[in-house]
C-alpha cells in the first residue's frame, strides 16, 4: 500500500516536474551554455569565461548595474513604504476606502506598455499634461524637460512604475492587516498602548510573513521591470536610464549578441538569487 502511494505521488508530481525542467531548467542551462560563447553573424565561438571577465572592463555594464541597483532600491522602498501607508489608511472600511480600492485595481489592471505610453505623454516636455498643469498654476516659467535630463527621466520612469506596481503591494498589506485579530489591538488599547506602540509591537511583527513575500517579489519585479524604461526612455539619454533587462534585450535582440546577453542574464540571475536568499534569511522566522 505504501509503495503504491509512493508511486502515485511520483506520478502526480511528474507533470509539474516536467514543466519546471522544460520551461525553467532547460532555458537556464541553455543561457548558461550560451554565455560561454561569442555569438555574431559568423556564428558561435567558444570563449569560456571571457564574456564574464570582459564585463569587468565594460563601462556600460558598470553604469547599467548601478542604474539597476538604484532603480530596484528606489522602487522597492517606494512600494513598501507607501504601499503599507496606503494599506493602513484603507484598512478601515469606509465608503471612501472602498472607492479608493476600486480605483487602485484600475491602475493595477492597466497593461504596463499602455501605462508607460500614457506616462510618457504626461511627461512630454512639449505637449505633456504635467508641464501644462505646472505652467497654468505658474509653478514653472518654461516647460521642464522631464525625459531629457537623465535624473528627471529616471524619476519619471520611477513614478510611472510606482503608479502601476504599488496597488499590488497595498492589497497584499491590506490582506495581511485584515488577518490580524482585532482582539490584539483591543487588549493593547486596554493596556494603554499608543498608536505607535501598537504599530511596532502588533502590526509589524504580524505582517512579517506578508512583508517577506512583498519584499521578495518587489525586488524581483522591480529588477526585471522592462516596459516602463523601454517605452518611456529606451534607456536614454546616452544609456543613463539603461537597466539590466533593457540592456540584455538590446544586446540580444538588437545586436544579435546572444553570448553577451546571456552573460548579463546569468549575472542578473545570480544577483537576484543571492538577494532573495539574503532577504529570506533576514526575514524568515520559525513561525512563518
Amino acid at each position, binding site marked *: 500500500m505504501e509503495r503504491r502511494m509512493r508511486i502515485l505521488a511520483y506520478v502526480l508530481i511528474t507533470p509539474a516536474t516536467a514543466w519546471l525542467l522544460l520551461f525553467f531548467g532547460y532555458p537556464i542551462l541553455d543561457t548558461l551554455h550560451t554565455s560561454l560563447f561569442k555569438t555574431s553573424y559568423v556564428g558561435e565561438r567558444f570563449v569560456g569565461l571571457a564574456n564574464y571577465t570582459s564585463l569587468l572592463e565594460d*563601462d556600460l555594464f558598470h553604469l547599467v548595474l548601478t542604474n539597476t541597483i538604484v532603480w530596484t532600491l528606489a522602487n522597492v522602498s517606494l512600494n513598501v513604504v507607501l504601499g503599507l501607508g496606503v494599506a493602513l489608511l484603507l484598512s478601515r472600511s469606509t465608503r471612501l476606502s472602498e472607492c479608493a480600492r476600486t480605483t487602485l485595481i484600475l491602475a493595477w489592471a492597466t497593461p504596463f506598455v499602455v501605462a508607460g505610453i500614457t506616462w510618457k505623454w504626461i511627461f512630454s*516636455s512639449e505637449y505633456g499634461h504635467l508641464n501644462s498643469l505646472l505652467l497654468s498654476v505658474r509653478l514653472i516659467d518654461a516647460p521642464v*524637460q522631464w525625459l531629457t535630463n537623465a535624473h528627471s527621466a529616471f524619476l519619471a520612469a520611477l513614478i510611472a512604475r510606482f503608479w502601476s506596481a504599488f496597488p499590488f503591494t497595498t492589497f497584499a498589506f491590506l490582506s495581511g492587516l485584515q488577518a490580524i485579530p482585532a482582539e490584539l489591538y483591543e487588549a493593547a488599547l486596554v493596556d494603554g498602548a499608543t498608536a505607535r506602540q501598537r504599530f511596532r509591537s502588533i502590526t509589524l511583527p504580524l505582517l512579517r510573513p506578508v512583508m517577506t513575500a512583498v519584499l521578495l517579489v518587489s525586488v524581483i519585479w522591480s529588477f526585471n521591470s522592462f516596459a516602463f524604461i523601454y517605452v518611456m*526612455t529606451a534607456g*536614454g*539619454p546616452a544609456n543613463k536610464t539603461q537597466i539590466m533587462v533593457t540592456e540584455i534585450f538590446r544586446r540580444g*535582440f*538588437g545586436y*544579435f549578441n*546572444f553570448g553577451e546577453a546571456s552573460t548579463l542574464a546569468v549575472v542578473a540571475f545570480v544577483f537576484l538569487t543571492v538577494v532573495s536568499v539574503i532577504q529570506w534569511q533576514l526575514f524568515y522566522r520559525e513561525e512563518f
Partner: protein
Amino acid sequence: MRPGRTVKVLVLLTLLAVVAGATGLVAATASAAVTLKVAWMGGNMKVYKVWKETFEAENPGVTVEYQLIPYAEGPTVYNTMIQGGNTPDLGYLFMGMIPEYAERKALVALDEYMKPADRANWVPAALDAAEYRGKVYGVPLIAANRTLYVRTDLMKAAGVHEAPRTWAQVRDLARKMNKPPAVQGFCVGFGRPKHIMQEQISMMWGYGADFFDKDGRLAVNSPAAVRYVTDLTNMFLQDKVMAPSNVTMNANECYAAMAAGKVGMMFSLPGQTKMCADNKLECLPIPNPEPNAGGQKNMLLIVDVFGMFANSRNKDLAYKFIQFLQRPEHRQLMDVEFGGVPVTMKVGSDPYYQSAPLKDYIAQTSTLKLTPKHPEWTKIQDGWGEAVQKVITGDLTPEKSLNALQDRLMKQLVVPSLPK
C-alpha cells in the same frame, strides 16, 4: 452474378469513384492554395491593400498575408524571426540590414531569379543598396534621401536671401532664425541613435569624416570626425539653436515640429514639403552646401529594400510578387503615398517625378552615396549615435567620446574594417 446485382455494384463503384474524385479535387485545390507572407515596416499604407487585392486577383489560390512591424521595432522583430526560423517569405528591410542578414544566410540572393530586363529597370544606385559582396539580396522599395530644408519666410525675415552654400553659413543661418521658444533654428533627432547618423551624415561627409577611412579601416575618431561632432554639438550646447527636447526627440518628431512651424532648418525627406504645405508653410529643399577642406559633397542615398528570406517555401511566387511591385503603376502608387524618389527607370520620366520637391532631390543624384556595407552596421551606427549623445549631455568631450567609441568597436566588432 445476377444482372440486377451487377448494376447495383456498378452504381456503387461509380458513386465511390465520384466521391473519391471530388475528394481528390478538394485535396488538390487545398494543396494549390498558397499563403505568401509579407512583413512590412512602418505604417499600414493604403497601397499595401491595393497590392494584396490585385495580386490575389491575378493569382487565384494565392493569399497574401501581411504582418506590420513598427519601424523602431524592425531590427528586433527580424532578429527574433531569424533566430526562431520563423521568417516570412518577403520582408521590408532597412538597407543596413542587408550585409548582416546576407552573412547570416537569412536572405536569398536574387541574382538567379533576376532577368537582365528586370535588373535594368531598377535605378542602379538604388539597386546597389541591396547589393553585398557581388550579390543582390533585395530590390529597392522606397528611396527617401535627406537634404537640407529651410523655412523660406523665416530665412527672409532673418535678412538672408540666398540659401547657405557652406556649412558655416548653415550654422549662421540657424542662429539668425533662432527665436526660442517659438522657433528653433535647427532640429536633430538626437533621441534615436540611428537618426543622428541618418539625418546628419551629409554634414559629416562635408567635414571629410566617415566611419571607415579610404583603406576600409574603422575611423570614427578621425580628426575630421572630431571637428564635425564638435561643430554639430556646439549648435546644441553653445548656439542653442536646437530645443533641449531634441535630446529625446527622433527625426519624425523633428519633421512634425518643422511642419508645425517650430523649426527653421533641418535635414528631411521629400515628404516634408507637403507636410509644411498642409499647414500653409513654405519649406523648401536646398542643395547640400559645398564641403569643407578635405570633405565631400554627398547626399545620403536611403533605400528601404524588399528582400526574400531563405526559409521561404514559395520562392518563385515570392519573386513573382517582387516583379509585380516593379510595374510602373504600382511603383508610382507607392512613391506618391510615401513621397519617395524613383527607384525604377520606367517611372522616373513620369511628370510626377519632375515636379518639386522630387526634382530637387533628383538634381543631386550625382552626389548620392550609401552608408558603409558592414555586417555589424547597426552596432556601429548606434554606437556613433550614443557617442554624440554623450557629448550633448555634457558627459564627454567630442574627442574623448569618439576615442572611447573607436576603442569599444575595435574590441566588439568581429572585423573592424569594411569587407572586401
